[in-house]
């Protein structure tokens, strides 16, 4: 399931719901990304999404992960709009028969989300606002899966 939301979400409650009723998935892995304050340099983050388009692109990444890692299920929750330091931005959870596939799929999905997902990120800090593009590190992380 893919959910774009402008509202805060509760990662614990989401993980509980994702795990509920599973009798055949032996493993669930999850990751939560949190907005960094950068020691006061980043006072707020604004993520722009293109509703309708962004979910479709993320859906294709999730489909690829489902096949590649033989997942039983996957969850992606992504915030957009203004986000304050300390707030969760993204959550990924994956379910599979055994742990290795769940761990790897979670890592893979995060690498894709960090560099390929259709979001435009603006950081507001004391020196003004700037649009952020993927870092070399993000692109190197993504290349691990080629």
């Amino acid at each position, binding site marked *: 399931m893919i959910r774009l939301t402008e509202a805060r979400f509760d990662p614990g409650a989401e993980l509980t719901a994702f795990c509920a009723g599973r009798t055949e998935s032996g493993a669930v892995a999850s990751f939560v990304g949190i907005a960094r304050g950068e020691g006061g340099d980043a006072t707020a983050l604004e993520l722009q999404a*293109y509703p309708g388009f962004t979910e*479709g692109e993320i859906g294709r990444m999730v489909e690829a992960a489902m096949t590649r890692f033989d997942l039983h299920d996957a969850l992606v929750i992504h915030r957009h709009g203004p986000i304050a330091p300390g707030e969760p931005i993204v959550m990924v959870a994956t379910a599979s028969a055994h742990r290795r596939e769940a761990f790897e799929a979670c890592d893979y999905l995060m690498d894709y989300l*960090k560099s*390929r997902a*259709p979001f435009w*990120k603006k950081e507001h800090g004391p020196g003004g606002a700037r649009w952020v593009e993927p870092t070399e590190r993000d692109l190197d992380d993504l290349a691990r899966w080629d």
Partner: protein
Amino acid sequence: MRVLLFGRLGDIAGWRERGFDPPPVSLSALKALIAAEDAALGLAIDAKGVRAAVDRVIVRGEAVLEAGAEVAFLPPMSGG
């Protein structure tokens, strides 16, 4: 026709969403119209790495536009 600008393109233009009436018949006609009104935005939407989507599907090169089309200009994505 609705035109949407994302990321830095919206800052350059001073708008993020606008209607165009009468609607241009092609993507190149739309770009030419935008460039004639706002040269800086015209350059920005034609820059390397900026993609266009018509009705939420990425198009490469030229595209014919229906009157009710939604055209979006997408600068390089930041990721989440």
